[in-house]
């Protein structure tokens, strides 16, 4: 057994048993972050904080929510919203948080794409981050089922039907996923389980992995500079803070992060208190009815771009396009053939690729919200979907001919 001296303080007592001083040093006080970054580098901690808000508000909602097709709608819209003290607050934080978390995820993703933060040892950061995007998407979808309103029901119907694989007509698989011929009790209870247990566990695991993947390659910086961390850390620890290219995660980087978080949470709570309705679709305030489809079904804004890729094609082609669009971002580190780690503005054609991709995804998002009947918008949607695939096909070629910086 290890030899223990009498501890002189509570901190020392814990340090003897858990090595907390070592942990603090490795995880915070000597975890080095480059100085050459901007506010976009705060999005990771903003996401972590938003996830925290979702967990806390979710715990309170879970105390009154009833995962039963006859009770679910009222347990949300009557019990939680009118009876439970401050129940409305948890629901609005949860609804707004679920929507805003995707805005920050997209900013975080496109920041990574712009600065090339997915290559030369940083591939796993990108892949685990994309894993988180998929897990959050599943979490958002399963949560959307729970109020059991019209949009819940019909989104559940349409999305589970995607698994029939078009002409494969795998309705057995669809019924297996639902546990019934249509979304019903078995469907609601299993999506409830996914939403409150399995998917949150997956997300927490992936967050730990995502942080872990940052450790060895370190976080990127505004110029993609390859920093000598040992040298920079030595300078900082010697007190030569000015010449060192790095700052410690705690307290210096976190202080800046918390400032950005402060600005973010002002916006967040402005939405929670004054504009929560943008995250609350009015159609979902009608209880689920399996015999009446709402006039126009559309997903929440953060799924619109991929929904618009599904829509303009024939059924099978649409499904294939949709499936590819869902996973193609995973391939980014392998389709970008250029060795340059640099902001897109310094990377020749990639600069245009980046802005074209960003604008295309925005156009797809706007078109996805419009009804399918207008020919002009349907054509814009089709062209944007084709541009999306053309950009991905072009990526290896334009990055191959990119000049090495």
């Amino acid at each position, binding site marked *: 057994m290890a030899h223990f001296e009498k501890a002189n303080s509570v901190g020392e007592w814990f340090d003897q048993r858990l090595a907390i001083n070592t942990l603090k040093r490795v995880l915070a006080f000597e975890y080095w972050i480059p100085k050459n970054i901007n506010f976009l580098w705060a999005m990771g901690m903003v996401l972590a904080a938003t996830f925290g808000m979702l967990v806390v508000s979710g715990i309170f909602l879970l105390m009154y929510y009833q995962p039963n097709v006859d009770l679910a709608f009222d347990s949300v819209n009557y019990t939680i919203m009118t009876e439970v003290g401050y129940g409305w607050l948890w629901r609005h934080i949860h609804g707004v948080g679920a929507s805003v978390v995707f805005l920050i995820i997209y900013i975080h993703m496109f920041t990574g794409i712009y600065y090339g933060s997915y290559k030369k040892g940083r591939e796993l950061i990108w892949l685990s981050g994309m894993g988180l995007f998929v897990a959050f998407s599943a979490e958002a979808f399963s949560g959307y089922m729970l109020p059991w309103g019209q949009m819940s029901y019909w989104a559940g119907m349409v999305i589970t039907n995607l698994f029939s694989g078009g002409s494969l007509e795998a309705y057995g698989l669809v019924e297996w996923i639902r546990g019934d*011929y249509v979304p019903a009790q078995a469907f609601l209870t299993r999506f409830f389980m996914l939403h409150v247990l399995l998917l949150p566990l997956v997300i927490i695991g992936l967050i730990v992995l995502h942080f872990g993947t940052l450790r060895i390659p370190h976080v990127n910086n505004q110029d993609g500079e390859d920093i000598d961390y040992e040298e920079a850390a030595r300078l900082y620890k010697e007190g030569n803070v000015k010449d060192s290219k790095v700052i410690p995660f705690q307290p210096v980087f976190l202080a800046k992060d918390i400032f950005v978080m402060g600005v973010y949470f002002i916006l967040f709570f402005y939405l929670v208190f004054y504009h929560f309705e943008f995250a609350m679709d009015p159609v979902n305030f009608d209880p689920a009815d399996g015999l009446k489809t709402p006039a126009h079904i559309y997903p929440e804004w953060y799924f619109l771009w991929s929904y618009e890729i599904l829509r303009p094609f024939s059924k099978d082609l649409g499904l294939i396009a949709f499936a590819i669009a869902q996973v193609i971002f995973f391939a980014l580190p392998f389709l970008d053939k250029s060795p340059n780690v640099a902001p897109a503005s310094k990377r020749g054609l990639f600069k245009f690729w980046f802005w074209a991709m960003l604008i295309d995804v925005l156009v797809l998002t706007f078109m996805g919200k419009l009804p399918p009947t207008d020919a002009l918008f349907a054509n814009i949607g089709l062209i944007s979907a084709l541009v999306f695939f053309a950009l991905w096909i072009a990526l290896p070629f334009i990055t191959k001919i990119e000049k090495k910086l």
Partner: protein
Amino acid sequence: MSNRRDFMGYALGGFTAIIGGIPALYAMKRSWDPLPSVKAAGFTSIDVSGAVENELTVEKWRGKPIFVLKKSKDMKADDRDVVIGSDRFHVSIGLCTHLGCIPAYVSDEHKFKCACHGGEFDASGHQTFGPPPSPLEIPPFKIDGTTIVLGEEGPEFKKMKEAGLTV
């Protein structure tokens, strides 16, 4: 394999995976299956003696909407019609074959129109516009006098199925 201990490790791991892992996966798969009570509650009888021409009735079978439309004389006869006496009925599962929304019946155009992605079907359930890849499906039915029993395969349904008119 470098030594006995590695061998024992692999053997134990492999054995556990085969006799423990595979049955566990099977049990998990079966737990996700539709319950027997869900599968058993599968029959609906519809009396069509009072049906009005060109007026859509929507019934419910296995949680899905069922379209029953008595055809008027000016509507084209179709191999998929359910014939009872001298009357012809269009009977189908009222879910768009694209992604499962319920199309609405527009009676003066004799058309089913789906709001989700713009698909259209004629009064016999054939797709005429938009993304639906196949006609509206016909549920298994049996004719019993003026009653249509859904969930049972009568001779008329079997004939349609053999002719490939529905899945």
